[in-house]
């Protein structure tokens, strides 16, 4: 077979055809190509309007104000800006940050960097299902706590944290809350008019938009007063200067709009794929699902295969089925998932875990084929292990 089956939508998604078309209209001479800051001429003005329309579209679907959103190069930058921005600007008010041990590296590595600079970080340990409880968070809060940073949906397990309950607590305690919504945005509705979240990161390439663009929601920008990571030029209220990438911004908004138009369709489609996939793999012995069976996003399945190591399965499958054992960010290295380890998963189950993630363009037929191939390979590898 020529085209491998892509089951790694949590790593990145293809750009939707309508999004690609929209991007093209913002690149060439006959389109809106100018610098959105060049408002001295009509070319620049058109680009500025395109950027502001995109901002309004994003805001509409997040139920926030357009001026509460700034564009960044992606969720990694948004997470860095939110966490470092708060830490550096509020050094005089405290030095403590609370996060979860299963967060994305963009949050964890940023927290580690801050620890080196004298901040103190509590990494909450989730239960075996990947969930944290409110009491645990409450107990971790101290007088010096500046910020709580928690992801809505985990990128490896699909586990959904109870952000509403977390936000209720942080707002009662008057502590800032940052939510990494990279995996949830465009897949579940986020209503910022109802959730007292202070900062929220998202990334376009997880919802069929382009790579290299994301945004950060900042409630009460003036009061929160983030310290920028980048200086010069004054764009994005000086919180994120640099020439705005009009085509990327317009593409993200188009993708976000599409994702919301199709929210129910996509979700139903993916739920049925999930059932079919689990049914297919149900034919195998010795499989264990990792994560929560109550609170999860259906597009991600994390599964361990007894007597089969993740590396050997991924390598055996890699030209037929594209998938990962964990987050894509580890630059080519296959290593045991720190997310699962933080959930208390150890030994064989840890080293045999695979993440499957489906998307809008995954077909029922692909799920059948992939299921078939995976079952065959798992059986073959198990036989080899016995011999």
């Amino acid at each position, binding site marked *: 077979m020529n085209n491998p089956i*892509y089951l*790694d939508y949590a790593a990145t998604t293809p750009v939707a055809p309508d999004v690609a078309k929209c991007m093209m209209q913002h690149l060439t001479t006959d389109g809106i190509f100018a610098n959105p800051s060049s408002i001295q001429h009509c070319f*620049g003005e058109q680009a500025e309007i395109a950027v502001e329309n995109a901002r309004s579209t994003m805001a509409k679907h997040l139920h926030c104000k357009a001026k509460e959103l700034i564009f960044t190069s992606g969720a990694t930058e948004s997470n860095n800006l939110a966490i470092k921005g708060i830490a550096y600007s509020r050094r005089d008010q405290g030095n403590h940050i609370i996060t979860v041990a299963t967060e994305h590296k*963009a949050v964890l*590595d940023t927290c*580690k960097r801050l620890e080196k600079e004298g901040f103190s970080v509590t990494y909450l340990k989730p239960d075996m299902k990947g969930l944290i409880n409110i009491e645990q968070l409450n107990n971790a809060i101290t007088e010096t706590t500046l910020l709580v940073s928690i992801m809505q949906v985990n990128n490896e397990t699909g586990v959904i944290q109870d952000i509403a309950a977390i936000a209720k607590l942080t707002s009662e305690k008057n502590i800032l809350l940052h939510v990494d919504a990279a995996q949830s945005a465009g897949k579940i509705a986020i209503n910022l008019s109802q959730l007292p979240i202070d900062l929220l990161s998202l990334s376009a390439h997880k919802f069929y938009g382009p790579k290299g663009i994301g945004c950060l929601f900042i409630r009460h920008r003036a009061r929160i007063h983030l310290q920028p990571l*980048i200086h010069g*030029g004054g764009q994005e209220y000086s919180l994120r200067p640099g020439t705005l990438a009009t085509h990327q911004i317009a593409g993200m908004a188009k993708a976000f709009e599409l994702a919301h138009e199709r929210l129910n369709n996509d979700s139903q489609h993916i739920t049925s794929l999930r059932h079919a996939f689990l049914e297919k793999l149900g034919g195998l012995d010795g499989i264990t699902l990792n994560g929560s069976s109550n609170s999860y996003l259906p597009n991600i399945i994390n599964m361990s295969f007894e007597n089969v190591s993740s590396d050997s399965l991924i390598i055996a499958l890699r030209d037929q089925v594209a998938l990962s054992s964990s987050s894509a960010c580890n630059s080519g290295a296959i290593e045991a998932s720190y997310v699962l380890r933080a959930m208390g998963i150890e030994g064989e189950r840890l080293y045999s875990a695979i993440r499957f993630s489906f998307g809008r363009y995954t077909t029922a037929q692909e799920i059948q084929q992939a299921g078939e191939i995976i079952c065959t390979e798992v059986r073959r590898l198990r036989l080899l292990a016995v011999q």
Partner: protein
Amino acid sequence: MIYFDHNATTPIDERVLQTMLPFLTHYYGNPSSLYKLARLSRSAIDTAREQVAQLVHARPEQVIFTSGGTEANNLALKGTQHNTKLLTSAFEHPSILESERTERVSINSQGYIDQLDLQVKLNQAFDLASFMLVNNETGVIQDIASLSSLVKGKGHLMHTDAVQAAGKIPVDFQALGVDLMSISSHKIYGPKGCGALIGALEHITKPLLTGGGQESGLRSGTENVAAIVGFGKAAELAYLELEKRQAHCLQLRLYLEQQLLELPGLCIFAPASQRIANTVQFGIEHCIGEMVLMQLDKKNIAVSSGSACASNEPAVSHVLSAMDIEKSIAQSAIRVSLGKDNTQQEIDTFVQILKHIIKQAR
């Protein structure tokens, strides 16, 4: 529609667009993953890295992709963790000037950095200097190699912002003798949202973005594959077509300047200096630049008064103030920055309309 604002940004080259498109919808793999689709993205990035390196005569492993020139400048300055003030000049890009503490070397009226002043200031305690290779407003080309040897002679690090130079003049990273250099994709007919920091990357010890470890740990975040591929293609084309583009722009600019100089009360800034082929900035007595821009805009002609970044600023360019140009004439500044696809006919139309506007203003 006449677009004479190529120093603010360029439209994408059709060939660049065609190279990028497959990486949006077909080869969309995350380059950090292991399977074939991801390896295609990874190798496309490697190719782009070679193409960008070739444009500026650097080695591929010296190239780190960023979200643009502003980020590259910030990474150079903040990432090197220098402990003293930054030694720079008064007419740099805001991404340099907005550094926390700067010491600014003066500029002469011809748009060159005053080397005597630099030598005096070099006696103070510094560990990093940053000077732009080509000024975005006047188009003046600095003698970075000389500045660099002075700076390096004192044992300091040297960065150059080459955003306006790359693709417009031959840029040789080795010959310039700098440690670090920033360039940007959208100034060379590539996409916005991509740039590169080039050079001795071991000096970058404090990345701006952490988490994920991409770009050798110096710039985390999923790579903007399509934009990087586009940047690479744009760099390749800029390298191959440099002489042709330069010659074309120079011919148009000389043609334009010849006609401009016939207009009463018009003066070209830094006229005798070494300038890039595509740029001319001029002032017109008794005119307000913003007003002229608006009138030109009504006729669908896009020019600029200076840098596009802080368009809401009052009318005097910080570049011209640094050059000590008289305020009344600086306020009338217009920058024309030409591109590879502009024509002589467009110049004729522009001059004709400009003449009319000036006449009316008086």
